[in-house]
């Protein structure tokens, strides 16, 4: 048991080092165009967003449509700090990150508590509502720049200084994966699988629902801060219902409850629009079809029929051709 774990850990460390080296190479050598290279940060941001959303959708089993709202709260908090104070990067950025994460987490609590008694459809709609409320309020307030948003945000986390983003991507994946394979993670998953039985074995559902919301929101907030300091501009409209859906598509495509899947899907779906630059309208259509197709495939019995069809083909082969 322990040897397997050690092997696993070593493999993971090697993988992390190799990816870092690969990304460094891409950045410094300029192999890819500037447009493509600059995608490194959005990829990192989307990975953090997808993995944190997966905690709620895949592991807790609740669909939330307001994830972009948490992202925007983190983004604005961090940006307001770096824009309005004269702090040097070494202090300003970490402060922005912590503040962004914490503020988003606080709102995760604020939203998580009322949402406790709701399930399924209603929970989804309420989170959608909250996302819209957040956007609405950000548009209305003066000090966040209203509809024009904030500009002049110092570009601390562009692809040129991707290291900090990389580190946080790794931290996010690690922490959430650890959480899932722990007693708290089992509690959260048991709520997904059968909340009545979960209560019957002593698990306080409200506590773990809130825990999932707060942790998920925290990371979304961090992602927001990175996003803000990459682009330099923030507008409330960027964090609307559509953004929440984009992240959901990534999670669905990668597989709900599948962290590795979220990472891969985040990479693919961040690169895709760039590769299909001219077909921007087709991208939306593509996302829609992905969502519908994935759901139909996984849930309508089609997958079972296909796997048994494939199995029967294999049997026929060995029966007729054979070894």
């Amino acid at each position: 048991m322990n040897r397997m774990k050690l092997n696993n850990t070593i493999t993971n460390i090697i993988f992390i080092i190799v990816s870092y080296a690969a990304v460094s190479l891409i950045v410094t050598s300029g192999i890819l165009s500037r447009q493509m290279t600059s995608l490194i940060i959005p990829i990192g941001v989307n990975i953090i967003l997808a993995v944190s959303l997966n905690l709620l959708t895949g592991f807790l089993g609740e669909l939330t449509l307001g994830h972009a709202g948490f992202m925007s709260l983190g983004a604005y908090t961090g940006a307001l700090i770096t824009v309005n104070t004269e702090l040097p990067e070494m202090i300003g950025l970490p402060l922005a990150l912590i503040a962004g994460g914490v503020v988003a987490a606080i709102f995760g609590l604020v939203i998580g508590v009322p949402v406790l008694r709701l399930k399924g459809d209603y929970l989804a709609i309420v989170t959608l509502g909250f996302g819209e409320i957040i956007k609405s309020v950000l548009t209305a307030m003066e000090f966040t720049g209203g509809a024009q948003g904030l500009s002049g945000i110092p570009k601390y986390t562009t692809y040129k200084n991707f290291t900090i983003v990389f580190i946080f991507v790794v931290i996010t994946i690690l922490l959430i994966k650890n959480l899932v394979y722990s007693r708290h993670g089992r509690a959260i998953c048991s709520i997904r699988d059968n909340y009545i039985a979960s209560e019957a074995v002593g698990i306080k559902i409200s506590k773990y629902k809130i825990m999932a919301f707060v942790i998920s929101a925290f990371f979304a907030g961090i992602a927001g801060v990175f996003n803000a300091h990459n682009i330099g501009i923030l507008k409330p409209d960027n964090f609307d219902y559509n953004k929440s859906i984009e992240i959901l598509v990534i999670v669905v495509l990668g597989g709900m409850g599948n962290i590795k899947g979220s990472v891969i899907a985040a990479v693919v779906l961040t690169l895709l629009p760039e590769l299909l630059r001219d077909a921007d309208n087709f991208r939306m259509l593509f996302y829609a079809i992905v969502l519908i197709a994935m759901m139909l495939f996984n849930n309508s019995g089609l997958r079972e029929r296909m796997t048994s069809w494939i199995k029967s083909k294999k049997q026929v082969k060995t029966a007729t051709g054979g070894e």
Partner: protein
Amino acid sequence: MALLEVKNLGISFGGLRAVDDFNISVEQGQLYGLIGPNGAGKTTVFNLLTGVYRPSDGIIKLAGRSIIGKTPDEICQIGIARTFQNIRLFKKMSVLDNVKAALHHQIKYSLVGSLLHLPPYSQKETEMNEKALEILQVFDLDSEAGTLASNLPYGKQRKLEIARALATNPKLLLLDEPAAGMNPNETGELMETIRLVRNKFEVTILLIEHDMKLVAGICEYLTVLNFGTELLTGEPEAVLNDAKVITAYLGE
């Protein structure tokens, strides 16, 4: 003092009085049966005992302590565990994880420990694995620890539910129709298992059942429920041969 003391228990759903003036007294270590025709309100009683419903009248005391108004998770921690009529396993989790989830309050480590997998994590997880396998062994399920709960055959799913309930270290175990859907062989095996569980885990058992062979075979005491209220209480021999009880089941 009885382990479970219930007096004048009652609840209404809309205009329907589902349970009325229900009394039961279960002694420590007893194997007690709750029987009655379909729709009598037996599962409703279980739901009242476990906090799923809040009674409108009556008292429920476990080891002298009132549990009315407490939530199901609190009641589990106080010492009542249950299984369900329509199996409620954690479908997407393994057999082992189903039991480990129930060990949540028995073996603990902090949230920080969970996030960072600090030292207590490995040690406690090993402890959990051992304890869970120990329980599964009683039910011959340890060899299937890695199987997905939803892939188990029906009979084993029922056993897993009981194993999971036992993992919460209860004082009182409520079994809701544990033999439902089982053939005579499986039922015989179940009877042995239930006796074993009572003896090995030192737990008091209150069970709902329709299978009279099981009821007559292992229950030491019975209460018959009809139309939400107590019809008769006593030893199986007397109760099962009583004219009123037979009428309740078979009609006039």
